[in-house]
């Protein structure tokens, strides 16, 4: 079974690039710009194996989402990698419960290494 990765980011260009990159190496990728309750529900219904989540989303703080997911029994075991164009977001992202953080723009190899690292946990 292919591992499913959910990527949440408010930029469509990035989402497409993520999909291309991750599909290339064999993952099933679902992308979404939506946030808030929609995403929450979606995750509960169909829990992915890994979530890549942007810190700053339009209108919502990605960290809230992260915190919430990590606090819900159903979703807390899903590894979350948070990303941001702000290099300083690392600390707060980790505080929010993210498993790891990557600064945009990142090297493809770095990303893939991290995905591999967490997806099997």
């Amino acid at each position, binding site marked *: 079974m292919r591992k499913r990765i959910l990527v949440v980011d408010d*930029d469509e*260009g*990035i989402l*497409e*690039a*993520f999909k*291309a*990159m991750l599909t*290339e190496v064999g993952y099933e990728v679902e992308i979404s710009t939506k946030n808030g309750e929609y995403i929450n529900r979606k995750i509960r219904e169909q829990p992915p194996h890994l979530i890549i989540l942007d810190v*700053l989303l339009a209108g919502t703080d990605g960290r809230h989402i992260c915190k919430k997911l990590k606090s819900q029994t159903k979703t807390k075991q899903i590894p979350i990698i948070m990303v941001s*164009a*702000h*290099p*300083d977001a690392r600390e707060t992202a980790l505080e929010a419960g993210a498993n790891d953080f990557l600064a*945009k*723009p*990142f*090297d*493809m*190899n770095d990303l893939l290494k991290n995905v591999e690292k967490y997806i099997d946990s």
Partner: protein
Amino acid sequence: MGKEEAQLLNVQRSAIFFGTNANQETSKTQNIRLNFFQDISDAVPLMVAVYNINTGEYLYVNKAVKKLLGYTPKDFTKGGFPFVVSLVHPDDYPRILEENNKALKEANSKKTSLDKDPIINFEYRMKHKNGSYKWLHTDGSVFSRGNDGSVEIVLNASLDITHRKEAEQKIEKLSKELDLRVKTKTRELLQMQENIQISEIRHRTMIEQSPLSIQILSPDGKTLQVNKAWEQLWGAKLEYLKDYNVLKDKQLIKLGIMPYIKKGFKGDPTHIPAVKYYPNKTIPDVPAVPYRWVSAIIYPVKDDRGKVQEIVLIHQDITEQKEAAEKVQQSEQQLQAIMDESPAVIFLKDLEGRYLLINRQYETLFKVTRDEIKGKTDYDLFPKETADQVTSHDRKVLKTGASLEVEEVVPHKDGLHTYISIKFPLYDSTGNPYAVCGIATDITERKQIEQRKDDFIALASHELKTPVTSVKMYAQILEQRFQKIGDKESTKYLSNMDKQLDKLVKLVNELLDISRAQTGKIEYKKRVFLIDDLIKETVEHIQIISTTHKLMFNSQTKQKVYADRDRIGQVLINLLNNAIKYSTKGEKVIVKLTKDKDCVTVSVQDFGFGIPKSEYKNIFERFYQTGDKNGQTFPGLGIGLYISSEIIKRHDGEIWVESEKGKGSIFFFTLSIAEDKKRKK
């Protein structure tokens, strides 16, 4: 003629009458006549004595002798001439003897029996029986003559003139006394006059020589005298004042000082307040002296009865002082105007923090007047935190004696405002500080603008990175794909694209860094690490991507520092990149690490263009770029050194350069050695 004198004359006449007939009669008739005469003469209050000058015999003395001299007629007739003579005052006798003889001589020479006048009259003293002397006026006349015609019998009629004589003597004495007194008085007066003259001379000299302008006036307001100083002060002479009356001086009336002058004229010494007087407005002949500021004293000179005789007016020329004071005032007004027009808040506080002076802007912003604020401190005007903050800055200024530029936050009605305050001490003439002066500019808006700018930059860099992220991802995907199918050329192209994207990201990051660095938003994550390792790593990393230069690092200190490893790495990268950038191919870059007491020093040396001494400070400034002599600029935003210097500053280190134009530069920075944890305990 007096009563007594008349009587004397009558007696003498009768005597003559009887006497002239003497020769033609018998002695019997003579005796009858004599007795008749005696009766008459007894009734007369004069003393009458008839005597023979040859025999000295007193033929007759009347009863008045008793009253006059206290003797009886018998005493006289008995004693005769010698007795009578003995009664004469010794001082008078020689005189009357002489006069008597003279008179007789003269009478004898006339030899006529028609004598009607007395031949002699004299005054002398005779002793009264009680011992006191009486003055007698005696008229002697010829009573009868002998056959040869010479005088034989004389009749003396004497009047008691003691009182008159005494009176005369008294008068004479008084007269002499008076004379003496007059003489003395005259002498005194002359002396006084002389003294007065001397005094007047002295007085006049004093007035003349006095450096103060003196004008002497008569009570009617006219000028009597002026001294040299007066002439010099007003540029006028006494003649010009011929028609001048001070009490009618229109200029003085207008200046409002006539009441003071009138007071002086009335009799009260008065000080006349200072006025600005234009002499040529009142006295026509005065050449154009513009004006004089004078204050004056007016005092009356009174006589013994308190009546004003003269008025003295003394002027003091205070023009220079006034002008100096005016200059000072003008200077102060100038300063005040500049202060008040300034949009900055300006204030002065004393050593205890009490306000001395504020400008208009301060008054407007903090709703307090400059009079109200005097004596108050910041604790009276602001909440405690604000006052604490501000006061500590003031104290620092006084302590160091140097000026201080500092940000201060002060509450306004609409919230907190940020000021950039320049504070400095003020010194008095002895060189001691007496106040703190502050000039504060409201930078709240500027700060807000800066904040917005920085926010914008942050947002912009974030936004810029977003498309770059996806492009980079695609580039890498494609690179891999082409690599898989063996298309080396395409792979290379995509690899180049990737590198350029990295550069782009780097630039964007620099831009973000610079705004954050300035607002101090970079958070430094400090930890203890080995500086040697960091340098080694970084040098190796840069060497890999730099094919044109040789980087050398051979030092060792084995020292640990407490710092943000990434950021220090950033500094090192910046310096190494600069070294490579600013030197030509094939040259080396030497990195050294040394230990000095309690800090380490890292140096990066290149052999490139070098930096002129005048630029040493400038290169660490934001946005500064050096070019070489051809005006060539180098890629980059020119912010690397600025950020590096900010990073080092935030680590309490120092960063500087030593260079020689054309020979190369060495960049240094220092970091404190981390304290040994064991030693801390």
